[in-house]
């Protein structure tokens, strides 16, 4: 019973941690716009936290650089279970513009996010529109319900 209440409460007021993993910062600006009055994610009870230990949803932007890869792994481990990972933007999903033309690996990247941690929801776009990010967060809530 208590667990059920906890689960319900979690889905109705999830907290988000936003990890920037080396992108061009545009996705981060769009994500900030999602929490501003125009797209207002907070009306759905969602709040942006600055501590991964408080978070339920982890939003990752950027193609994980080598410099940040160990920190990202640590952040992922710090988010308590159950957690949902949203990969936001083309470069978080596949590398996007940071891929080399000739198909060789980029020397600065530790690969797209999926190489390091499991992704639950993908939000393509470079940057994704705020509407699209909200869609992604809503899908993440669906996933959170199942977990």
């Amino acid at each position, binding site marked *: 019973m208590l667990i059920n209440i906890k689960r319900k409460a979690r889905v109705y007021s999830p907290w988000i941690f936003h990890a920037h993993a080396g992108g061009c910062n545009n996705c981060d600006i769009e994500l900030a716009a999602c929490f501003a*009055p*125009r797209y207002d994610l907070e009306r759905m009870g969602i709040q942006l936290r600055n501590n991964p230990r408080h978070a339920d949803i982890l939003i990752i932007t950027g193609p994980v650089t080598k410099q940040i890869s160990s920190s990202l792994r640590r952040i992922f481990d710090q988010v308590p279970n159950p957690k949902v990972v949203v990969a936001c933007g*083309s470069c978080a999903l596949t590398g*996007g513009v940071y891929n080399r033309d000739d198909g060789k690996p980029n020397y600065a990247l530790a690969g797209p996010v999926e190489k390091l941690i499991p992704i639950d929801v*993908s939000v393509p776009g470079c940057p994704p529109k705020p*509407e*699209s990010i909200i869609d992604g967060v809503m*899908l993440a809530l669906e996933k959170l319900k199942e977990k």
Partner: protein
Amino acid sequence: MNIGLAKLVKELIKNSFRPVTAEYPAIPVHARPHEPGEEVRGRHKFDIEKCVGCGACQTVCSSGAITITDSGLVRVLRIDLSTCIFCGRCRDICPEEGLQLTSEVGLAQPYGENLNSLKVEHSVDLSNCVGCGRPTYPRKQIEAVRMRVLSNLDKANVDSASKDMDIYLKYCPDCRRSLSYTLGTHPRKLY
């Protein structure tokens, strides 16, 4: 009273009646009307009639999202929307207007499931080389090239050029080179 202050108060009163927050999910993202002049670039759409399969879009693609695979006599153009950055260069370069970007931007979806919904595909037929049998160019591209060349020539040259093209467009570049004397397309024939 101060005019600036009056203006400010007017704006404040106006603002308190102006809806600010966009509704969710009242209207699907891609069906939302946007301001005139503002362009929304979303999922791609190939025009099956117009695309000739030339591959110009793949050459200019900013992020390498477009891949071209030739297997047998079929050429498949595939756009991976999870790599694409929606810059629109492919649409701008396309000589046949065979590619459009629709305003469908709500592409978020659960990861790993239904991967094909993030791919846009189009296939065109290739033609054979009469000499060696290898696949050469897409049929439609050959027609498009012929039309374009003929429409840019002087009237006097149209007949001979179209006769030439009837022959050498059937061959692949290698066969054309080795057969150029027999085909009569060698540059030396001109002097």
